[in-house]
């Protein structure tokens, strides 16, 4: 019997190695896999590359992981926000590397990784600092930049309902980067509000089919 649900956080975090690239879902606090991030803090992997839209807020979650010196490099679209104090300290001190990627390019690079597209052209960013050094080409008169797929070793995602095959649905704007990251990683770990019996999720409504999901951790909303 296929059963992707895991018993506890230790099982969820198994095998995340030092040096791993970790994709972290969520936009703002919505759809963020908070429990899994805390699990990763506990688990101990270091020298990580984190891919997320933001560079953490306050001193918890992703910010805490960075503060502990476990993140070597962050790839994101919006590093500096009101609460990104930890990132800014580390960045000024030269203790964390940063790659800024336009938000749509970030999503598309991960989707490409999930879809077996190693590289693609986009007009986004052409002629800007973020395209410096990248190959360019013109299509129908539009100058474009070549962008590469961005695969993860691990994706940490948050979803609403799941079943034991790993099918996932999301809640409203909690969807955001989660389905894209789930496609893009070698190991996808989902923190979910509910685990339903197999066959309960409407096959027309599944957003992330189980083929993209490896582990499901039940973590009901408080």
């Amino acid at each position, binding site marked *: 019997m296929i059963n992707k649900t895991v018993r506890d956080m230790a099982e969820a975090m198994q095998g995340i190695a030092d040096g791993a690239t970790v994709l972290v879902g969520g*936009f*703002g*606090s*919505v*759809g963020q896999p908070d429990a899994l991030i805390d699990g990763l803090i506990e688990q101990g992997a270091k020298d990580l590359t984190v891919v997320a839209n933001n560079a953490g807020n306050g001193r918890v979650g992703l910010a805490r992981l960075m503060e502990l010196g476990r993140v070597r490099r962050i790839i994101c*679209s*919006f*590093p*500096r*926000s009101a609460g990104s104090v930890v*990132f*800014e300290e580390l*960045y000024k001190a030269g203790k964390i590397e*940063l790659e*800024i*990627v*336009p*938000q*749509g*390019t970030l*999503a*598309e690079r*991960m*989707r490409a990784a999930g879809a077996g597209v190693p590289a693609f052209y*986009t*007009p*986004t*960013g*052409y*002629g*800007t*600092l*973020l395209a410096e050094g990248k190959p360019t080409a013109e299509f129908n008169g539009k100058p474009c930049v070549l962008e590469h797929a961005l695969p993860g070793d691990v994706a940490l995602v948050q979803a609403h309902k799941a079943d034991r095959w790993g099918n996932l649905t*999301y*809640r*409203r*704007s*909690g*969807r*955001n*980067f*989660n*389905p*894209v990251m789930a496609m893009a990683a070698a190991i996808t770990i989902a923190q979910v509000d509910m685990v339903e019996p197999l066959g309960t999720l409407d096959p027309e409504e599944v*957003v992330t089919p189980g083929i993209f999901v490896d582990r499901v951790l039940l973590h009901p909303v408080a």
Partner: protein
Amino acid sequence: MSETSFTPLSRKDMARRVAQDIPEGWYVNLGIGIPTLVADFVPAEREVVFHSENGVLGMGPAPAPDDADPWLINAGKQQVTLLRGGAYVHHADSFAMIRGGHLDLCVLGAFEVAENGDIANWATSANDTAPAVGGAMDLAAGAKRLWVVMEHTTKEGHPKLVRRCGYPLTAMRAVRRVYTNLAVLDVTEQGFAVVDMAPGLSFDDLQARTDAPLRKA
């Protein structure tokens, strides 16, 4: 140069002026700041579909405090609502809408707009090594048309409509129209063309506050 007496538009008036030009049926993404206010001035009977980068299409206004739904925010991380007919999509699909040219309009704020349509709105200097770009480059390059709404000059009085952007670019040749507290200007092959001016403002007054040469539309 003599100064006439005029009344610059308030932030709300600027938003109202932009809203006036958005026809029914357009799909529109509004940036953070003054652009966000635009939605408030589209008449209720005129159906305009607002898009948010984080996968919300058919976004409605802020919820009543009792109805707030923590799972539904916009790209500015503010709580919003979903209109009847709205839909949720994931980030790659959301940016497919943007990058695939499906949005009729994007309205952004900016630090500078150049007469060739270049826009700078994400980094205030090349030395700012950790600026936050978000979806600005995707929106500027991808939407069918890009309008900018911003103050005509900086707080220090420096022109923001320039011959050539000094700040790092967000996109090249992207802006179609600029709405400021002093005027509405089209970006044309021949540079900025003045469509509209604040009541009482003369063309010469406007030119005096603008780096790039202006012409009448």
